[in-house]
């Protein structure tokens, strides 16, 4: 174990996978200089053949990955901000998500798209989205969002090795956050949620950027004698319905925390699954702590007002634990 910064864990994953398999290539806008630091230095190690700065052309970037991956390369595309998922949406929703089925399974598409998401830094309405939903709904792409450096490394390595397209969402502005990362090589499986705390009174389900506040809320609730089961979703598509249902059933009370705008959020999908498959065990309404269906204001207080936070989780929890 070594304390490692979030962004470093991502960088390590990229470096290790590029060392392991020379078919892995990386491209995107300014991946050499690396605005977030996650791809920094890779150009020096792997050279301009495998690490390529690109023009600003998101529509082509997402579509390109299909051609390169179908030809046998493992393509990592760094899209920079997650809002640019919309800018390059055709390549994701109409091409990479469809090409395998449409060809009758002729091809594999080892594609990883990295994008940084989330608000809270006055980046305003076009640089703060959490577009989990946009890619979860398309079917045909896996979607992961690590909440800590260890999972960031493990999930990204799994994504790069996967023969299917994976969208890897990194939480914006968390690059400096530290966490323990296992020594040596390891993979975090795609499709598996993690129960990160066991409890009997209430189940908190978080993901990516909302895990820290979710765990904080669990700590605070423990102080008032409410023991929380806490789940880190880790993979939004496919969802680990089994782990999610079991965790919900254990307590019968659930709060789901997701930075997405609420309508059709990952939180809503999880809620719908629980309302179907775990219904018999539910003792209270399923609560969602999400971002309202509003664009992000620039003014920091007005932006923060919209984002999930520990207090909102506590409020939701109190509502259903009292209940």
């Amino acid at each position, binding site marked *: 174990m070594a304390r490692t910064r979030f962004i470093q864990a991502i960088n390590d994953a990229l470096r290790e996978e590029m060392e392991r*398999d020379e078919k892995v290539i990386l491209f995107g806008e300014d991946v050499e200089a690396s605005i977030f630091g996650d791809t920094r230095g890779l150009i020096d190690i792997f050279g301009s053949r495998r690490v390529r700065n690109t023009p600003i052309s998101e529509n082509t970037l997402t579509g390109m990955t299909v051609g390169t991956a179908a030809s046998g390369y493992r393509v990592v595309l760094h899209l920079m901000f997650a809002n640019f998922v919309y800018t390059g949406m055709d390549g994701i929703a109409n091409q990479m998500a469809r090409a395998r089925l449409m*060809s009758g399974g002729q091809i594999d598409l080892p594609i990883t798209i990295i994008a940084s998401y989330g608000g809270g830094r006055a980046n305003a309405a076009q640089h703060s989205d959490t577009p989990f939903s946009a890619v979860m709904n398309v079917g045909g792409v896996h979607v992961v969002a690590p909440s800590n450096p260890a999972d960031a490394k493990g999930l990204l390595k799994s994504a790069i090795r996967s023969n299917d397209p994976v969208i890897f969402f990194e939480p914006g502005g968390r690059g400096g956050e530290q966490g323990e990362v296992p020594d040596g090589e390891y993979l975090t499986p795609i499709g598996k949620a993690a129960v990160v705390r066991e409890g009997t009174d209430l189940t908190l389900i978080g993901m990516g950027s909302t895990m820290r506040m979710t765990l904080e809320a669990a700590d605070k609730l423990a102080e008032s004698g409410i023991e929380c089961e806490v789940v880190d979703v880790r993979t939004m598509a496919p969802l680990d319905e089994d782990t999610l249902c079991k965790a919900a059933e254990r307590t019968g009370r659930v709060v789901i925390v997701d930075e997405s705008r609420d309508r059709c959020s990952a939180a809503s999908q999880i809620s719908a699954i629980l309302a179907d498959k775990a219904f018999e065990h539910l003792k209270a309404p399923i609560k969602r702590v999400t971002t309202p269906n509003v664009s992000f204001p620039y003014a920091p207080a007005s932006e923060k007002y919209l984002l999930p936070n520990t207090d909102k989780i506590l409020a939701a929890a109190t509502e259903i634990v009292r209940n």
Partner: protein
Amino acid sequence: MTANLSPDVSQCLELLQTMQVIRYAEEQLAADFAAGKTPGGVHLSIGQEAVAAGVCAHLSENDQLASNHRGHGHFIAKGGDPKQLFAEIYGMSEGICGGMGGSMHVADYSKGIIGANGIVGAGLPISTGAALADLLDDDGSMTVVIFGDGASNQGVLQESLNFAALWKLPLLYVCEHNGFCQFSPAETVTAGTISDRAKPFGIPVEVVDGNDVRAVWQAMAWATDHIRSGKGPAFIEAKTYRINNHFEREHLVVQTPYRTEEEIETMRRERDPIKLLQKWLKEENLVDDEELGAIDEKASSIIKEAVAFGEAGTPPPEDIGESYMFAGTHS
């Protein structure tokens, strides 16, 4: 254009053969659609066969070809199996895509046919990525993308041209300019000369008569020579004409004609690429009627066989879709 090479007689006969196979295939599909034999719609390239044939004559299985919604001809010319094509369009599991893709999505990756596409213009990003793979492979292979005049108005054309020029991608753009973008005459939705759009990127351009298969072949000789010698991308604009409707359902939806019957008839009579090649071959005394008849018959029998194969197919299991979604494997 530097290469002045022309196809020799045997090459011409192969081109003729290819065009006739495509023609028979599509005449059959027109009838099949009318008879309700194809579950989905079909976009036919009757009259445009010279582009498919001339382009693909210069490509090997290692070369990749990305195509569009009007892609049967490209599929056949690039070596796709007509049997698997028909089975696919009939929606059978024996189809090249197991019946999952249908007319708009035929692909045979083993032969470098990396897919027709239902999204107009989408072949451009995909082929850009494929050409990047060629570049990385560095094995002399190249990628061709065939797209329509209408597709040229998708911004991905410009984006792709920029990538190709910057990275010297072994990528050939072939704009199959058939005069129409769905129900719009090209000049009403497409400004200027399309191939000129490649020039600002320093990409060399050739405009050819797309109904003259020898001219297409010749332009391809130049383009492939240019690309395979590592000089980067090239662009061919092939001017042709769509004889059939945009799709075979058009007569049900278009109430005000966007072109005259007379125009179509003239094109059919005077500009049919198959007739043009046959005429030239005969004028030059390079073939006799018997040889032409043999080619015609062979083409016809290939398609008859293909139809029979398709008809004998079995629909894929109802619940098959999910199994095709993911490889579910990793490296």
